[in-house]
């Protein structure tokens, strides 16, 4: 079995779904997404959890130019693949209730995007990585701009230009690395083996960083994010926040830091500081939000800031935490956005100030909301906990003060999230919320899946973490050795 099945299944599915009529398209999309989950599941059971790259596909693409269709998974990619295949069926199912015009195009775009992202998470060739990166961007642009809110045109164009700008610089870095390899190849392992000067590494590092920082987004590259999340249709927001931003996390771990370790070492403190500023800044803004979806968007910036801080601390627990938290943040944020989708569909508003007492009108919904919320605020025994713990641990090993500042996200997060819950769910019902109906069939199913994942991964995170342990250890060690060697070289010069 090879990764190409994983990549091409959603691509073929997208074409089939496009050719179907509305309702059939909906169910076909779900069917294919679940089929993809099964394929990935089989892959995970066959995966040997060491640091090697497995299930490799290697085909000629443009051999003259050193470009090959090489893709495979190691532990790090596998967690991202898992995130992808878990969330896409949930996202598709969650959008069933929305009356969708041109559902076939909508679901085809989602599946196409899934294929693009799977390319990103499995590519072993720089060119392929870039193509996947952009191939995931085009569908989300159309999803947001076709089915989004009122200001969607202006905002999604801003989003597109922002992310496209970042990725073009990444393309330059990739071409540059290619030109430095003696074999003139785009192979990731040859990129790792390069021996670049600090100046060259700095160029590559910042070019990659722009792309990844915009995607995640790291402060101050986040300005596109709250608007886009608010205006995009819920499924689009879920795809963006749940999966797509993890492309930045993955890229930083697997492509940026290992190819430019010494530059990373030099600028590490700047970037961690930016990440921590982002955490505090976004948390404070989240306090002020009255629009529920916007609140979740800002809280997402804070959480991702912590992930970024963990990566850039570059310790085994930081990187491991970043991976596991990427998975968990994806699950939680999809849950959160789905909850706000339910609320805004029932009440036609997302203004927290107008709500109250929904818990008494819809008790099942209240329980599901609470579980997702507790996962988001990282209560022990929910999935958020282990990730944040490892991340803070990683940052602590780098710098205790930064760790303390980053830790504020947990306190702030708990405060604004619980306050949101109080204002929305508790207290007396009012005219608006009194007729709030409880969960219906597929809403129940979606929230059950999400809650189950939150609790399962909270109690038994090792089920996922064992996949990436060896790969993370290996990568962290290699990079640290390179950093030390680089420093020694600088001294002896």
């Amino acid at each position, binding site marked *: 079995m090879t990764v190409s099945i994983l990549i091409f299944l959603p691509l073929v599915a997208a074409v089939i779904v496009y050719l179907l009529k509305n309702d059939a398209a909906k169910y076909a999309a779900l069917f294919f997404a679940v089929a993809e989950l099964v394929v990935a599941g089989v892959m995970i059971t066959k995966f040997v959890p060491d640091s090697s790259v497995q299930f490799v596909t290697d085909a000629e*693409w*443009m*051999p*003259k*130019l050193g470009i090959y269709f090489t893709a495979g998974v190691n532990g790090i990619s596998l967690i991202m693949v898992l995130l992808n295949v878990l969330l896409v069926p949930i996202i598709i199912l969650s959008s069933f209730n929305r009356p969708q015009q041109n559902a076939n195009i909508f679901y085809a775009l989602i599946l196409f995007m899934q294929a693009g992202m799977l390319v990103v998470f499995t590519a072993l060739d720089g060119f392929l990585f*870039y*193509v996947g990166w*952009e*191939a995931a961007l*085009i569908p989300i642009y*159309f999803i947001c*701009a*076709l089915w989004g809110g009122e200001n*969607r*045109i202006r905002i999604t*164009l801003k989003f*597109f*230009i922002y992310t*496209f*700008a970042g990725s*073009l*610089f990444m*393309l*330059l870095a990739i*071409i*540059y690395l*290619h*030109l430095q390899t003696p074999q003139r190849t785009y192979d990731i392992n040859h990129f790792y083996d390069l021996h670049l000067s600090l100046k060259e590494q700095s*160029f590559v590092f910042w070019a990659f960083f722009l792309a990844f920082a915009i995607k995640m987004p790291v402060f101050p590259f986040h300005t596109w994010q709250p608007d886009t999340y608010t205006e995009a249709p819920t499924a689009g927001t879920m795809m963006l926040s749940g999966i797509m931003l993890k492309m930045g996390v993955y890229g930083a771990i697997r492509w940026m830091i290992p190819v430019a370790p010494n530059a990373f070492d030099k600028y590490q403190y700047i970037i961690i500081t930016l990440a921590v500023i982002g955490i505090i800044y976004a948390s404070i803004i989240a306090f002020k939000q009255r629009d529920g979806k916007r609140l979740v968007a800002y809280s997402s910036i804070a959480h991702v800031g912590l992930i970024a801080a963990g990566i850039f601390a570059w310790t085994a627990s930081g990187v491991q935490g970043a991976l596991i938290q990427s998975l968990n943040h994806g699950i939680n944020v999809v849950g959160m956005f789905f909850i706000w989708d339910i609320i805004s569909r029932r009440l036609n508003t997302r203004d927290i100030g107008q709500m109250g007492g929904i818990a008494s009108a819809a008790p099942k919904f209240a329980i599901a909301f609470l579980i997702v919320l507790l996962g988001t605020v990282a209560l022990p025994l929910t999935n958020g906990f282990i990730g944040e713990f490892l991340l803070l641990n990683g940052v602590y090993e780098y710098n205790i003060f930064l760790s303390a500042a980053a830790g504020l996200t947990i306190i702030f997060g708990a405060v604004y999230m619980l306050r949101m819950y109080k204002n929305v769910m508790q207290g007396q019902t009012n005219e608006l919320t009194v007729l709030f109906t409880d969960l219906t069939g597929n809403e129940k199913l979606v929230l059950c899946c999400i809650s189950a994942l939150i609790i399962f991964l909270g109690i038994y995170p090792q089920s996922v973490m064992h996949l990436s342990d060896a790969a993370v250890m290996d990568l962290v060690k290699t990079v640290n050795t390179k950093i030390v060697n680089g420093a020694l070289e600088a001294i002896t010069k």
Partner: protein
Amino acid sequence: MNTLILISVLPILLLYLGLYKAKNALLPVTVIGLLAAAGLAIKEWNTFPAPVYSGMMLFNNYAIAFSVITIFCTVLILLLSKDYFEKISSNVAEYYAIILFALAGIIVMVSYNNLVMLFIGIEIMSVSLYILAGIRKRDIASNEASLKYFLMGAFSTGFLLFGITLIYGATSSFDLTVIRDWIITHPRDGEFVYLFYTGILLIIIGLSFKLGAAPFHFWTPDVYEGSPTLITAFMSTVVKTAGIAAFLRLFTVCFVTVSDYWVPVLTGITVITLFVGNITALYQHSFKRMLAYSSISHAGYLLFAVVSISSGSNSAVFTYATAYSIASIAAFGVLLLIQQNHGNDNFESFDGLGKRNPFLAAVLTIAMLSLAGIPLTAGFIGKFFVFSAALSRMHVWMVVLAVLNAIISIYYYFKVIIAMYFRVGNETEIEVPGYFSFVLGLSALLTLIIGVYPGFIASFI
């Protein structure tokens, strides 16, 4: 060389057809003739060419590749012209004949081996274009376009000719190989060295005029706007491709050894061209004018490959020019239908096209994505090659500037995508003739094929 002969004879045949009122035969005869010419060119592929006509021409693989692509694009444009010329004129045969004369000039331009032939090629092409630009005799805009083009063209010819003369003065030859040898045998402080270098500068200016590169671009938007749309399509694709091919041929064969002298000059021109083209395109309300300005910026990207002159330049220019031409032809094709339907070509005319005619909207979207350089389209591969070539010569800052331009260009290319899909327009049906469907479909398909599997085209050169 038979290609050139065939393309030169064909227009005469067409004029006779016109004389005997065989209007319906014009298009088939032209297309078959051109395909035959392309076939003759392909036959000579990889046949170790020797210079012909006393060393005036050299029909090597480079010339063949560019001849075939220009012929192919001309065929696509002519297919779009099915009813177009009949509507604006009664003397249809002349159109076909003049376009083919221009094409004959273009074939000379991509296969010259002697500066005189370069000059003659450019003039054959230019004179034909002056006529084509003004072919709508009673249309003031068309007249203006023609006059402007003629004046500017004559001006630039002066520069080019003066440059050629100076180089002849220094080297006593028009022959590319002799000039190349002269540079190698004459160190930089020789007797005629100033003549020679001034000659290079003047040639750069002359050719930049023809390409529409800034700051010699002022004629472009007006001429493009005033000319009949299909002629504009021809000018901004085939003619531009020929211009850059001639440019590259001269500089790779002759001047590559003194590249440190002219590269800074051309770098300046390239950067100005990119910014002028892109920034002015941002402010356009008319789709046609936007395409005109964006074609200036594409000239900038093409010049990029000349600046970073290397072994990869040829394939970079070829791929980029092909990608750009095919996408532009698709864009102009859709524009033509919209113009006929709405009477104007503002962005508003495209409102709601996604609903009204999904096929046209899809083709135009693919064309715009390709022009913007988004992956999985041919345009991306072109940009990728150009950037690779430039980075291999360590022009990092230039590439960064080019990237900034690519980002700016997203804004105006997406304007039309936004109009088509996200705005509501009137609901009148647009009838798409069969020829159009064929050309547009083929262009879109080729754009995607080259985008996904570029080995298919990059292996040509």
